[in-house]
Every structure is written in structure tokens, then in C-alpha cells.
């Protein structure tokens, strides 16, 4: 009975000095290791916990989220002058001021508080990331699951469509899609009568647009997973018991690809947030006076020149964007390692 902890079991080679590369540090647990008999979820969680970067990232994201949610509340309940200086839309005469006690991240061209704008911008950016990734998740999972499970002609057809969409230049289609649908819907009567809907419509379209062009990889991966799941014992059993296709899809297949799904959401979010910042750089993203990290960075970047550098306009929003993306990436990596998903 081998009761040694797994980590010290390194394969030894005859006559060779002990392996110095950690690359080859084996990590195969023995057959009697209790870890093998817990559920995939529990195993994943345990693996995840050992990844320090991922855990740290998760904490950071939770912290960020907390600050973003608390800040507007803080503004509402605090005194009038505090709320006024930190109101992200409040113009003032203190243009381009570097960080001071009054304005922790400085002010921008209109004298608005950059700290507040960064936090409110975070709301939009993260929302775009989550909803966009969510949209791509839903479309991708459904598409891939149906293709993989049903197979045959349906699979062929659905995957051909994915191939076609893969060859389209996404930038053009995102731009045109956003603007076309946006204008068409905005001009319909339904929207004209409800001004609140109209202003948020733009942001909604960005979510949907970005998500709609990112689901392709997800669909392929889900299909691959479903193909392998389809032939597993529990699915066979379910079928012999008489379960119909939708039932099997929703009760057995989809819950089992949960792990991959979550991982790819965490990995797609950075891409979507970056994409949104590209669109904002082209003035196609979120419209003024709302801000997202993309618009803040675009504003800041436009100030970079050899004569006067308002570094706080780029460093703070950019720094927070980069650290958030880093955190999402590490979290995604951690989740992927935890669920033991192969990258192809």
C-alpha cells in the first residue's frame, strides 16, 4: 500500500541524477487516493484552492465588485459636498488636476473626478463582459450541445454555419450590426415612447453584439465535450430508461459541461472587455456621458504627447483594467486546471 503523499512520487530513472525539471514532477494519484473518489466538483474545488494566483484573483475580483457596488450607495448617503465633488458627471473648473486629496485619481478635461468615473465605468465594463460572455455562453452551449448530441445532419449543418461565421471579418460585422440594429430599433415606435429604454439601448446592443460574435469557440468546445459525454454510461442508461432528447440534454449533458462553461466565461470576459475598449477607442462603444474603461482609456491615450503628460488619465483606468483582466485570466486558468480541461 503506498501511503506516500502524491507529490513526492517522482519517477526515477536508472543511473540518472534526480530530475531537476519540475516539468516532469508527476502528479498522478494512486488508485486508493481518497481524491479519486470524490465528485468532480469537489476534486475541482480542491485543486482550485491550491492555485494561489487563482485564489488571490478571486478575492481581488470580489473586492472590486464590492467597491463598485458600495460606491454609489456611499455617494447617496454622504454629505452634499462629498457627493458633488465625486459625482462622475459633475463638471467643474478644476480641469486636468493631478491626484489630490480632493480627487484621488485626479480630474479630466471637464473637471470630472476620475476615481468616480473609473468606478462607474467599471460597472459598465464588467457588465458588458459578464453579459457578453453570458450571451456567448448561452448561444454557444445550446448550439454545441444540440450539434454534439443530435449528431448526423444537424451536427454537420450547425458546424458548417460555425465555419462560415468564423471566416467573417468580425470587426465589420460588429460595427455594422450594432449600428444597423441600433438605429432600426431606435426608430421603432415602441422605443420612441420610452426614453429610458432608448438611452440604455445602446449599451444593451453592445452586450448582445459582442456576445454574438464570441460564441463560436464555445460552441466548438461544447460540441467536443458533448460528443464524448454522449457515449458515457449514464447517458446510455438514461436513454434505455426512455428519456427523450431534450430531457437528456438538460438534465444530464448540460450540467456536466458546467465546468468548461464557467472556465470559458472567465476566459472570454477579458476578450470581450478588450473588444469593447477597442470599439470605444473608435467612438463606437458606450456613448457620452456614460463611461466605460474603454472610453476612459481612449480619452487618456489621446492626451499622450511629448509636451504634457496627464499620466493619471491613463494609468488609473488602465491599471485597473489590466489588473482586472489579469485577475480574470488567472481565475480562468485556475478554473481550467481545476476542472482538468484540455485546451484544444
Amino acid at each position, binding site marked *: 500500500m503506498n501511503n506516500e503523499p502524491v507529490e513526492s512520487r517522482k519517477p526515477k530513472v536508472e543511473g540518472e541524477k534526480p530530475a531537476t525539471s519540475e*516539468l516532469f514532477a508527476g502528479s498522478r494519484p494512486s488508485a486508493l487516493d481518497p481524491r479519486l473518489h470524490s465528485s468532480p466538483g469537489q476534486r475541482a474545488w480542491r485543486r482550485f484552492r491550491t492555485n494561489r494566483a487563482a485564489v488571490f484573483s478571486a478575492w481581488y475580483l470580489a473586492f472590486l465588485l464590492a467597491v463598485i457596488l458600495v460606491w454609489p450607495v456611499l455617494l447617496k448617503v454622504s454629505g452634499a459636498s462629498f457627493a458633488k465633488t465625486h459625482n462622475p458627471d459633475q463638471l467643474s473648473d478644476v480641469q486636468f488636476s493631478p491626484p489630490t486629496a480632493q480627487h484621488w485619481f485626479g480630474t479630466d478635461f471637464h473637471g470630472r473626478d476620475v476615481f468616480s468615473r473609473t468606478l462607474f465605468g467599471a460597472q459598465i465594463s464588467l457588465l458588458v463582459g459578464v453579459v457578453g460572455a453570458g450571451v456567448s455562453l448561452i448561444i454557444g452551449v445550446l448550439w454545441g450541445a444540440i450539434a454534439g448530441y443530435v449528431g448526423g445532419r444537424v451536427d454537420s449543418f450547425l458546424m458548417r454555419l460555425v465555419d462560415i461565421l468564423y471566416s467573417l471579418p468580425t470587426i465589420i460585422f460588429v460595427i455594422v450590426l450594432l449600428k444597423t440594429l441600433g438605429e432600426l430599433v431606435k426608430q421603432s415606435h415602441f422605443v420612441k415612447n420610452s426614453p429610458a429604454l432608448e438611452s440604455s439601448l445602446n449599451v444593451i446592443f453592445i452586450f448582445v453584439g459582442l456576445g454574438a460574435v464570441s460564441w463560436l469557440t464555445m460552441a466548438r468546445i461544447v460540441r467536443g465535450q458533448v460528443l464524448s459525454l454522449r457515449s458515457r454510461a449514464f447517458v446510455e442508461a438514461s436513454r434505455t430508461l426512455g428519456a427523450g432528447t431534450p430531457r437528456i440534454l438538460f438534465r444530464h449533458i448540460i450540467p456536466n459541461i458546467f465546468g468548461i462553461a464557467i472556465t470559458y466565461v472567465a476566459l472570454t470576459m477579458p476578450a470581450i472587455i478588450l473588444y469593447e475598449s477597442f470599439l470605444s477607442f473608435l467612438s463606437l462603444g458606450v456613448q457620452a456621458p456614460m463611461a466605460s474603461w474603454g472610453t476612459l482609456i481612449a480619452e487618456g491615450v489621446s492626451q499622450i504627447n511629448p509636451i504634457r503628460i496627464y499620466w493619471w488619465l491613463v494609468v488609473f483606468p488602465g491599471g485597473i483594467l489590466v489588473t482586472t483582466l489579469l485577475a480574470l485570466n488567472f481565475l480562468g486558468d485556475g478554473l481550467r486546471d481545476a476542472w482538468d480541461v484540455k485546451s484544444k
Partner: protein
Amino acid sequence: MYFARRILFAIPLLLVISMLAFALVHLAPGGPFDTERKPASPEIERNIKAKYHLDEPVWKQYCRYFGDLLHGDFGVSLKYRNHTVNDIIAQGLPVSMTLGMLAFCFATVVGVPLGFFTAARRGRWPDYTGSFLAVLAVCVPGFVVAPFLILIFAIKLKWFPVALWETPWHMVLPSIALGSYFVGKIARLLREGMLTAAQSEFVTAARAKGLGETALLLKHVFRIALLPVVSYSGPMLADLLTGSFIIENIFQIPGIGVFLVNSSLNRDYTVVVGLSLLYAMLLIGLNLAVDFSYTLLDPRVKYE
């Protein structure tokens, strides 16, 4: 045979793409001839539209366009009316391709060793810093990297020109700015590939046979790990081509990336459809080439 079939399949694919692009761009509100100054009479507007057949129904315009396409004529740009789309492609494509390839070279030359060393020194400091740098490269947008590069290397240090595209010196900064994202991606891909390969049965067998450490790393693990990197090159080259528009914008490089974006903003229908087709052809071609090279590299892989 498989490849012949795929090439054949590409033709109806391109047809569908051209129809899709055509329809989408015509659906968008606004037209190419909406201008700031209104012509003195509505006749003039009508004349312009008639000249470019914009008053006909969309399907009819498409048929006309398709007919021209069969002759290799992509049409005349609606915004730059003295240039045909073929002119634009002939001018811009070599530039974008050079930029893309240089960025690709930069990405592989930096990314591959980075990935290799982080995998070889896994779990220790070189790995942590290297991986961190790789992820960082993926997280910083190109339009932030570029101005900083310009500020430091072109303005303060004066080593390189600030913008434009004329001599090889002009090509350095844009390639770095464009390739930085892919350095990170390649490094991460290679690292993962090596980690996976190191666990594979094949490698364990090789070690059991008594192969030394460095030989193992270099000859076997690395080469297996290269396969995912190679297969990523296809989409990566394609991404480089279109993702270059921001870099081209910032450095004022006359490539097709800028045309791609501006033509859709200008509702320059012919250029949009023409460039979409071009991009699709490049992508399909690249994907085919990558899959083909895959068979060369790994004869276990067979397509039926």
C-alpha cells in the same frame, strides 16, 4: 482529396459571405453620399445614386455586383471614386501583410523562448515572472502599448520614427505594438502544450528508456508542444491582419485594416464587401495551409 474538397467547398462559402456582407452593409442606415453640404438640387443627388445604381433594389444591385465579380472586378470605391477596390487592395494588402508577418516573427521569436523557459522552470521564479509577463501582454490593449512605445522610443529616445511607413526603421515599433498581445498568447500556449506533453505516455516511455533531461526537453516535449502553437498560427495571422487597424491608425500606416473600418463607417459598400471577401479568402486559405502543415508535422493526423 480532402483538401480538394475543402477548396471546392470554399467557393459557395465565399458566395454566401459576399451576400451577407452586401445585405448587412446596405441595411445600415445612412448612405455613402450623405454629405455635409447638400447639393443645390435633388436632381444631383438622384444623378449620383443612379450613376452607382444605388436606386435599384438591393437584390438587383447584388446580381450586378456578382456579375462584375466573375470578371475579377470588385467595383469602384464609392468614397474614393477614382480608385477601384482592386487599387485599394493592391496598395494596402502588401503593407498589412508585411506588418502582420513582422509582428508574427516578433511574437514567435519572443513568445516561443518565453513559453519554453516558463515550462522548463515550472513552479519557480522564472516561471512566475515569465507567466505573469505573458498574461500581462495579453491584457494590455494595443492602443495603450503603441502610444507608450512612441513616447519612449520615438520621441524621448529618438531611435525610431514617430509614424508612417517608409523604411525598415519605420516598421519596428508598429510590429512590436501589434505583436505584443500574441507574444503572451504563444508563450501561454507553448507552456501549456509542454506541460501536457510532459505528462504524456510517450514521454514517460522515452524517459524510461534512459533519455537525458535536456535531450528530452528539447527534442521531444518541445516538438509535440509546438503543434497547438502551429494550429493557432492560422487564426493568429488572420487576427493580425484585421487587428492591425488600431496600430495602423496610430502609426498612420497605409494598410487595409484602416480601410476595413473606415469603409464600413463611410458606408462605402463596394469596399466593405470587397475587403470582407478578401479577408474571408485569406482566412480560409490560412486555415487550409495550417491544417495541411499539420499533416506534414504529424503523420498520425489523417483527414478523411
